[in-house]
C-alpha cells in the first residue's frame, strides 16, 4: 500500500502498513559488525558476544590506567558531565540465559565500578539512561527510576536473552524505583544488591543477601576527601570576581582609584578569602564529625572563624589596617565559610531535605544581616583610612 495524502478531514491520517511507506528507516537488526564499529574505540570494549537473542557488546573487567586518570578528572571538573556511555545491554564474560542481570546508571564511574566488581563472572549489565548521572543522585531525581527501567527492559528486549525474571539493582537506586510496579508491568522481580559494587561477590556468596554492613551508607574521611576538589572547583569561578572586588576596594582613594596602594588591604582580603575557602571547603568536610554541632552552617562558621583568628594572632594581618577592617573581615568571612560548608550538604550521604530547609531558614537572615554590617564596617574603615574619622 502506498501512502497517499488523505483529503478527508475526518480521517486526516491514512493507516500505515509498512514502515517503508512513511519514509522512516526500515527496522534493521543489529549485527556484530555494527557493534564492533560503534564501540571499537571504547576502552572497555573487548568484543561481541553472539547470544541466541542477538549480539551484545562485551566489556572488560579491568580498569586501565587511562580510565583511572579519567576517574580522577571526573572527580575534579565538569568533565564528569561528559563521562557517560550508551544505555543498553552489555555482557561480562560469556553470560548464558541463566546469568544474573545487574542494572546501573550510564555514568562511567558507576559502570566502571560495577564491571570491575564482576571480574571472573558471567553476567549481563543493563545500563539505564540517567543522563550520565550516578545511581544515587539519579534515583533522587527519578531518572534512575521506574519508568526508565521499564522502558529499557522493553527496548533491549532483555527477556529474550534470559530465561529467568530477576534483576539486581544497586540499593541506592531504590529511591527512584517502585519494584512492585516494575514486576506488574514487566514480570521482572527486583532484588536490591549492596550499596557498594565491590561487595557484590560477597552478596552472591551469601545467597543474594546483603547484610547490614553492605546495606549501610558510610561517609568516611576518604569518602569526604574525594569530594573536596569538586567543592573547590565550584568556588573557583567566583574567586576571580572576588579578587577584582578586593583590589578595587583597596585601591579606592579620595583622589580616585589608585592601584599603587591597592596591595596593602587587598593582600589581607585575598589572604582572608583563601583561608575561608580552605576552612569551608577543605577543613569542614575533612573534620566533619569532629567539629561541634550538627548544623553545617554552624560547623562552617566555627572552622572559618577559627582559621581567621589563628591567622590574625600569628600575623596581625587584619588588625594592622584598622579595628573596623578586622571586624568586617571576621564577620564577612566567617559567614562565607559557613555558606560554603552549607553547600556541602548536597555532597553528603546523610543530610535530609527538611533539615537543610531549616538550616537555610535560620542562616539566610544571618547571612544578609552580616553582609550589611560588614559592608558598613568596610566603609567606615575606608573613611578612617582617609583620615576623615
Amino acid at each position: 500500500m502506498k501512502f497517499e495524502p488523505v483529503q478527508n478531514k475526518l480521517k486526516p491520517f491514512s493507516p500505515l502498513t509498512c514502515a517503508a511507506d512513511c519514509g522512516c528507516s526500515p527496522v534493521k537488526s543489529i549485527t556484530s559488525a555494527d557493534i564492533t564499529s560503534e564501540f571499537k574505540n571504547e576502552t572497555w570494549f573487548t568484543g561481541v558476544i553472539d547470544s541466541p537473542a542477538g549480539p551484545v557488546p562485551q566489556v572488560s573487567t579491568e580498569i586501565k590506567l587511562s580510565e583511572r586518570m579519567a576517574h580522577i578528572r571526573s572527580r575534579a571538573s565538569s568533565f564528569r558531565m561528559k563521562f557517560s556511555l550508551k544505555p543498553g545491554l552489555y555482557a561480562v564474560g560469556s553470560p548464558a540465559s541463566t546469568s544474573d542481570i545487574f542494572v546501573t546508571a550510564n555514568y562511567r564511574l558507576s559502570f566502571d565500578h560495577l564491571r570491575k566488581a564482576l571480574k571472573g563472572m558471567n553476567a549481563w549489565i543493563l545500563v539505564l539512561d540517567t543522563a550520565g548521572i550516578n545511581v544515587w543522585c539519579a534515583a533522587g531525581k527519578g531518572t534512575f527510576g521506574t519508568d526508565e527501567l521499564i522502558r529499557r527492559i522493553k527496548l533491549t528486549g532483555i527477556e529474550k536473552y534470559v530465561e529467568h525474571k530477576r534483576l539486581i539493582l544497586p540499593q541506592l537506586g531504590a529511591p527512584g524505583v517502585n519494584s512492585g510496579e516494575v514486576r506488574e508491568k514487566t514480570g521482572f522481580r527486583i532484588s536490591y544488591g549492596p550499596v557498594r559494587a565491590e561487595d557484590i561477590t560477597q552478596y552472591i556468596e551469601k545467597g543474594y543477601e546483603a547484610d547490614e554492613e553492605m546495606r549501610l551508607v558510610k561517609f568516611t574521611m576518604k569518602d569526604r576527601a574525594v569530594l573536596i576538589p569538586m567543592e573547590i572547583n565550584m568556588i573557583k569561578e567566583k574567586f576571580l570576581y572576588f579578587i577584582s572586588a578586593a583590589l578595587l576596594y583597596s585601591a579606592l582613594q579620595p583622589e580616585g582609584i589608585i592601584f599603587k596602594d591597592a596591595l596593602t588591604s587587598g593582600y589581607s582580603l585575598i589572604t582572608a578569602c583563601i583561608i575561608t575557602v580552605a576552612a569551608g571547603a577543605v577543613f569542614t568536610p575533612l573534620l566533619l564529625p569532629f567539629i561541634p554541632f550538627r548544623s553545617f552552617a554552624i560547623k562552617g562558621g566555627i572552622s572559618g572563624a577559627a582559621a581567621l583568628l589563628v591567622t590574625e594572632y600569628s600575623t596581625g594581618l587584619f588588625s594592622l589596617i584598622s579595628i573596623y577592617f578586622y571586624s568586617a573581615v571576621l564577620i564577612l568571612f566567617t559567614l562565607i565559610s559557613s555558606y560554603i560548608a552549607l553547600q556541602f550538604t548536597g555532597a553528603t550521604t546523610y543530610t535530609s531535605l527538611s533539615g537543610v530547609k531549616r538550616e537555610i531558614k535560620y542562616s539566610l537572615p544571618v547571612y544578609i544581616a552580616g553582609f550589611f554590617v560588614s559592608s558598613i564596617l568596610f566603609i567606615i574603615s575606608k573613611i578612617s583610612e582617609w583620615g576623615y574619622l
Partner: protein
Amino acid sequence: MKYFRDSDTFQFNSEKCTGCGRCVEVCPHNVFKLENRKAVPVNSDRCMECGACAKNCEFGALTVKSGVGCAAAVITGLLRGTEPTCDCSGPSGKCC
C-alpha cells in the same frame, strides 16, 4: 554522623505492615528493624528522607516527604519559586 530533620516528614503505619522486610533492605541508614514480623523504625532520627522505603513499600505502610538534602537545590528552588531542584542534568557541571 547525625543530622536533624522535621519529625512530620516520615510516617509509618504499623497496621498496614506485613513484615516483608523491603524497607529494611533499601534503607541506607538502617532505620528499620524487623521485630515480631513487623518493621519497626528504631533509628528514625537517622532518616535522610531519600524515600526509598516509601517507594518500595507495596502495602502503603510508609510515607516520606522525600527530597535531596542539598542546600544549593533548596536555594535554587527558593530563587525560582519552585520545589528544590539541582542542576545535575544541566550543562553547567554543578551537581549535588
